């Protein structure tokens, strides 16, 4: 600790931002909050990127650890108690002045505060709470705050902190409780899922309160009462890959204490004094992160966990972090080809399909096909296996059907539905709307015509789609992605069309394209 005290703020910032960089979440989205004319700050729902670091990732928030001291021994983490690294801790005031001064120069959209575990989870969570309290009430900061809930800390502290933050997250870290036991023995599924459930209930109670307030205002003005449906409880499912002994389905007789019921009926605890007239609890929702490639789980397991988190815990985002071996621990894979960036990319693509495109994991993967096609994005891959759903007529198909077409994004689909009320659309219009025709053209008709004659044939379309080099994303291609990564995934280097057949499982269709 003596070392810490003699450190300059510059040295601390170096150590504690370097130590925070493997946390991937850095979005400032999810909440619209105008300025109040007095204090500094406002928030925009889509979020704002302030710069992009040398790895090409968005920097939106001042992402730092409060301290990199840690009593835990998670083997993937650079800050675990066994590592010989330089340690540092901020004071709450240092975090506040950095945030305020960076914010007024428009370097950042707000603060992302995480921490190693100093002394105990409660001690650390309280430091984080003190820091946020100071930032909101002494410095009157009205910008975005994303904060970590420390696994194993007291629910009261989590509650109090949640009324000061915009977003909270607890990292799931690894997809299964088995992996967690092996690599992060101080954490468990229950110390992670318990606060996650608590935050979910807090958010639900808070937004119910907002709705009731709105309702009351409407009634008072003599308008029609728009009564919100608050009867529906929250999901009672469990997470796949979980340890049923530790975290069973929340049936009411599980081992989750009564203080955090699944359908939150208990009123959340209010902090003393509020930074807003009506404080809201975690208004931008909660997120989490999983490390990809440190443990042997397949994509099917990972995506099923993500789906469970979205459905049962109402998470806003699940982030996937390609594993980088920073500790050199023998219990971890070496990954000579670099972090599994392509795999991470496919998981994000599938994650978008879940959140914006009404897909379910069971449509994308199965026990028999547990991993994503590395050559084709998950949507193209799905479309090729469901040619019976195509072609889709642009001027007639409903929104959900349009969403399933490769090359049509959710924004384009929305524009199509609105634009065709003003008249029929042609292929030239689609291009201007933002449809990627080189992918979509095999799957659509405009007024009954194809863009040019193509066959609705698996091999033919697959070959053409694979010729499109955006299938292996730019960031992966350009970060030195080579065939080597394919070998790493246990594949022989096949000719392109052979590979596609192997991967998309078209073994029955091989004879059709014998000449290729």
């Amino acid at each position, binding site marked *: 600790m003596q070392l810490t005290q003699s450190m300059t703020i*510059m040295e601390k*910032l*170096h150590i504690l*931002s*370097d130590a*925070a*960089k*493997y946390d991937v979440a850095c979005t400032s989205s999810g909440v619209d909050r*105008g*300025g109040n*004319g*007095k204090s*500094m*700050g*406002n928030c*925009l729902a*889509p979020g*704002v*990127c*302030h*710069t*992009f*670091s*040398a*790895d*090409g*990732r*968005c*920097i*939106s928030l*001042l*992402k730092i650890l409060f301290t990199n001291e840690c009593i835990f021994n998670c083997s993937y983490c650079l800050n675990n108690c066994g590592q010989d690294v330089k340690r540092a801790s901020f004071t709450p005031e240092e975090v506040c002045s*950095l945030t305020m*001064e*960076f914010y*007024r*120069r*428009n*370097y950042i*959209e707000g603060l992302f505060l995480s921490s190693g575990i100093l002394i105990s989870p409660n001690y650390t969570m309280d430091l984080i709470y003190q820091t946020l309290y100071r930032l909101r009430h002494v410095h009157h900061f009205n910008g975005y705050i994303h904060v970590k809930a420390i696994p194993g800390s007291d629910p009261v502290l989590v509650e109090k902190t949640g009324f000061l933050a915009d977003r909270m997250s607890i990292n799931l870290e690894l997809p299964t409780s088995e992996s967690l036991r092996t690599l992060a023995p101080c954490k468990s599924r229950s110390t992670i899922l318990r606060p996650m459930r608590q935050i979910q209930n807090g958010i639900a109670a808070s937004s119910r309160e907002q709705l009731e307030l709105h309702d009351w205002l409407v009634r008072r003005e003599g308008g029609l009462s728009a009564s919100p449906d608050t009867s529906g409880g929250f999901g009672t499912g469990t997470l796949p890959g979980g340890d049923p002994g530790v975290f069973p389905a929340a049936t009411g007789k599980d081992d989750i204490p009564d203080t955090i019921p699944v359908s939150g009926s208990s009123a959340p605890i209010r902090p003393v004094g509020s930074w807003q007239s009506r404080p809201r609890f975690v208004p931008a929702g909660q997120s989490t992160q999983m490390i990809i490639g440190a443990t042997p789980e397949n994509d099917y397991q990972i995506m099923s966990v993500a789906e469970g988190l979205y459905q049962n815990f109402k998470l806003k985002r699940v982030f996937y972090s*390609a594993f*980088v071996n920073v500790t050199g621990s023998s219990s971890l894979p070496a990954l000579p080809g*670099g*972090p599994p960036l392509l795999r991470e990319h496919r998981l994000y693509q599938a994650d978008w399909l879940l959140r914006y495109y009404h897909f379910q994991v069971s449509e994308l993967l199965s026990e028999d096909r547990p991993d994503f096609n590395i050559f084709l994005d998950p949507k193209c891959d799905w479309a090729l296996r469901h040619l019976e759903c195509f072609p889709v007529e642009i001027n007639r198909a409903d929104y959900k059907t349009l969403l399933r077409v490769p090359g049509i994004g959710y924004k384009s689909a929305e*524009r199509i539905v*609105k*634009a*065709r*009320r*003003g*008249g*029929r659309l*042609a292929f030239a*219009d689609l291009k*201007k*709307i933002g449809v990627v025709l080189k992918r979509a053209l095999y799957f659509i008709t405009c007024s009954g015509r194809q863009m040019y004659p193509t066959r609705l044939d698996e091999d033919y379309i697959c070959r053409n789609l694979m010729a499109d080099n955006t299938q292996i994303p*730019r*960031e992966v291609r*350009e*970060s030195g992605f080579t065939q080597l990564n394919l070998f790493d995934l246990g594949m022989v280097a096949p000719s392109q069309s052979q590979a596609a057949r192997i991967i998309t499982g078209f073994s029955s269709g091989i004879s059709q394209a014998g000449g290729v």
Partner: protein
Amino acid sequence: MSLHVLICENSIDGILSGIYRAYESRYGHSSIELTTADRLDTYNLFCEYEEVPVDIQKVQKVSRTLLREFGQEGFRTLCEAMSAWESPRDCQKEMSKANAVYKTVALGLARKEGARVLNYLGESYVNRVFQLSRSTYCESHHLLGFLRFAELENGVLFSQVHPKNYVLPLLADHFCDRLPQENFIIYDDTHKTAAFHKAGASYLLAEVPEADRKFMERYSAKEKEYRALWLEFFRSIAIEARKNPKLQSGNMPKRFWPDILEMAP
């Protein structure tokens, strides 16, 4: 029947004055075209040209009508389109923004559908308005993040930007809301215009043809310290194993770099 070309000043006020004149003239929409003065390099023998001066009263009349018929969001989209920059390539290949906005307005008013016609992207002029407003919106959104303030000796926050589109009012609105108790100046060097904001007040826009460069660089003592801290943060937050300069410049186009502290040479 000859085509009447109304030549407007290249600004929101200019184009709205042009739209007023188009209605007032009663030539009929199909025989009128709007354009801005700076795009016009050749005259067509079979057209009649007329210059339309800016008239603030007419601008206000048209604005009121558009706000009523298109709503706040729709009017905002039209204004974004009118603020857009037209590249030399656009000027050759695409319809003038003044004309695109005019024809879109005419469609909206004729069909009594207001802002809904902004969705009819199958119409070429509506599509043009969509492209232009998107370009302005995207650039302003980029700059909400990329803009950097520096604290000067007198405590004023100063920022210089070089946007293609005229986004200064959008930026000023945002920072007034965000930093109500700061004195700040945003200087748009492309359009030689600055937004001045005094703590606790609204902002003023003023043309600044000749900016004093030395004034911009007299930083406060604390300024140097926080710049150094920011540069340190920017360096240490990147993951070496994922280094990817092309992704970085793809997300943050190079034309913005000279004004971004951590990317400037």
